[in-house]
């Protein structure tokens, strides 16, 4: 096989559909060894970008390169990029295994590999049933199996979590991480940040055909409102005094609860214990990825619902 640096580069992609600008100068890079989340509201251009990466749609400007080469230049694409665009893109009368079989034949991939990937995604027993009878979760697994068929270093998944049950979601998160651990480049799109919260290492956030943020998950969380500590204590006044003296911002949120910003939970415990202030409960409150994402995309939501007036709602 050709030496492939599994980096995916997207440079200045532009694409219009009639009067609608789907992509407006999109650029980002996906690197191997981590799961990159590709997030944005519906209609942000995620699927269009993935179709251009796979040579299915042509860009009006810009390019998408896999290991430095355009998709059309790949002679054995299944060995270089595995993709799942739409889990329901299988003929309902064809058995799951047969769907993988024709794909395998197109690249002279041995039949045993078909059974291997079915095993890998947990469809070994369902492979001989017609795809029309599959649940959405099983179709997602079949789509992932077809992406893995050529054992490629680059994997693209469009909304793989969509429609999965909680068990399936847990499975796919672990699966994506293990694929990345093997050194593969894994790009996963989703319109819900929460789906990626536990699996993505890096995020590319898009809205209206542009990149809004291209950052690691850790950095994104840091830019969002900082960490807070919730505290329950009967000695509210004493606690406030001790913590304020240490430079923390303290807010009273109830009769016996306080919210502390600034020091970490460990530091708060240390301070209160040192001063002999009793407390019954302490918990760290982390900003969620969802909150950070909402902050970022708040102005670019194309079809944002109008804010509900609470007076009217009542």
């Amino acid at each position, binding site marked *: 096989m050709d030496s492939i640096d599994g980096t995916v580069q997207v440079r200045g992609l532009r694409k219009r559909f009639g009067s609608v600008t789907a992509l407006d100068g999109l650029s980002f890079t996906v690197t191997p*060894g*981590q799961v990159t989340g590709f997030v944005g509201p519906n209609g942000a251009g995620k699927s269009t970008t993935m179709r251009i990466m796979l040579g299915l749609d042509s860009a009006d400007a810009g390019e998408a390169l896999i290991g430095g080469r355009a998709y059309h230049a790949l002679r054995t694409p299944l060995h270089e990029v595995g993709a799942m665009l739409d889990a329901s*893109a299988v003929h309902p009368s064809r058995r799951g295994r047969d769907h993988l079989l*024709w794909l395998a034949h197109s*690249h002279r991939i041995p039949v045993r590999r078909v059974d291997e990937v079915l095993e890998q995604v947990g469809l070994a027993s369902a492979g001989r049933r017609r795809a029309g009878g599959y649940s959405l979760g099983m179709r997602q697994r079949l789509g992932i199996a077809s992406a893995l068929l050529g054992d490629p*270093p680059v994997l693209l998944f469009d909304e793989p979590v969509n429609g999965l049950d909680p068990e399936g979601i847990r499975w796919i998160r672990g699966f994506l991480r293990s694929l990345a651990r093997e050194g593969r480049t894994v790009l996963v799109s989703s319109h819900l940040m929460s789906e990626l919260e536990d699996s993505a290492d890096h995020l590319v956030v898009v809205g209206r055909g542009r990149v809004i943020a291209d950052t690691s998950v850790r950095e994104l969380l840091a830019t969002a409102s900082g960490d807070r500590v919730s505290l329950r204590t009967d000695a509210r006044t004493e606690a406030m005094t001790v913590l304020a003296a240490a430079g923390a911002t303290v807010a009273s949120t109830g009769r016996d609860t306080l919210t502390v910003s600034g020091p970490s939970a460990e530091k708060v415990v240390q301070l209160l214990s040192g001063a002999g202030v009793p407390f019954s409960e302490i918990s760290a409150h982390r900003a969620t990825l969802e909150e950070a994402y909402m902050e970022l995309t708040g102005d670019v939501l194309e079809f944002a619902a109008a804010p509900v007036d609470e007076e009217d709602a009542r």
Partner: protein
Amino acid sequence: MTDTQTPPVTPYRSTAVPAGRDGFVQLLRAEWTKLRTVRRWGLTLLGAVLVTVLVSVFAATSSKVQFAGGGDRGPEPTGPGGVRIVDSFRYAHQALPGDGTITVRLAEFRTGEGSTPEWGKAGVLIKKDAAPGASYAALMLTPGHGVRLQNDFVHDRAGSNSPAGEPRWLRLTRDGTTLTGYESADGKEWSEVGAVTVPGLTGTVQVGLFVASPMVDTMDRQFGSVSVSSEPSRSTAVFDDVTVDGGSGDWRHTDVGEQPGGDGQSSGPVGGEGESSESGGRFTLTGSGDIAPAQYNTDLAAMSLSGTQLGLVLIAALGVLFITAEYRRGMIRTTFAASPRRGRVLVAKAVVIGVTAFAAGLVASVASFLIAQPILKANGHKPPRFPELQLTDGPVLRAVLGSAVLLALIAVLALGLGALLRRTAGAVATVVVLFVAPLVLVTTLPIGFAQFLQQFTPLAGFAVQETLTRYDHVATLCLPEEGCYPQGPWIGIGTLLLYAVAVLGLAVWRVRRRDV
């Protein structure tokens, strides 16, 4: 799967799967796998075979052909080479032991009483003997086709376009087995019509004057029904200035082809006995009949393959679905992502569906022929009025194999339409408009328009099912109802081939450019 903590920066290298190649053979194999793994499509193919055979058998069971007048011919004699022939005419002749020349002036040629046979014949004729089917060469004037030099029934060569109403000088020279024809307007300036070698004209032969006047076919064509009537005709020719060099013996007058004691099925002139007289070197001959290859009116092979006309609908639907099913569910993206050279994918699909349709079509047409032939025979379609056909006869083999090719090309055309339109319903409707509608319409439209459809729409492919040999020098009715295509089998299937290649080519061009 390994759980080893490879440093994340080391890109993944596959160890599980050897790298394959993206050759065309793999594409064929992938597309064949797609085709065979949808059971419904297998059933559609089976249905196409069954429909074809059943409709063919039904057509054979219910076939009725009616002729008014004298279409009922007796057993024809055969000419040199075993061709079935018609050989009956009025002949005034004498012996010609060696080389010689006959020169005449055809003073008058009155054709027909009522209708004029375009291939009426009057002129000079050298024949081995007066028996029907004997080898001959003749130089003649015809009402519709000028001067002709013909020999041994199937060979025809054109001379001038001289009209039958004007006197014409004709000369035929024998030099061994080489016969040379000349014509002249005034008996002074001669031009050569041609020279032919007639191997049968050895030793003593007959030389003389003749007249023949074939049956005239007229048809009455109405919505869904045709009646053909054949009327006998009689023509009279007057010759003067008759000179025969090398002739010997007296002039004799013979109705060639007439069997004495006719039983109504005789092969003699249907228009009655010929007459001829000679006075002062002036010969007057009146007669009927023809000197020509015999032709059948009913194409039994095409009739036993008529189920193809309905079988094609299922084959076309399969061709369309083979691509539109992928578009409908977005599977086409998986296909084109796996094989980015989309044109090759489409060609691979065309090969797979074409070969499959050919195989199914071959099973269907061989079975249709073998089952329908005995039924047709039992229904009265038997010799001598109808030919005895074998699967291994050249024209039958062409029709049977051609029907399979026809279905293969229809499948490819349907695939191309499916790729262009991307919608099952639209593509199937287009195929129906292209094939089925003309098939129904040709029997009801005026014959000129019907023959236009037969020649220039994809329908032309059905011409390949014709097995009747047609000669340009014999008047024939080419009726769409009888499966007659004016252009002949090869041009017909070639026309469909052009359509299929053009539509597939257009589809390849579009698919390569358009977003998926």
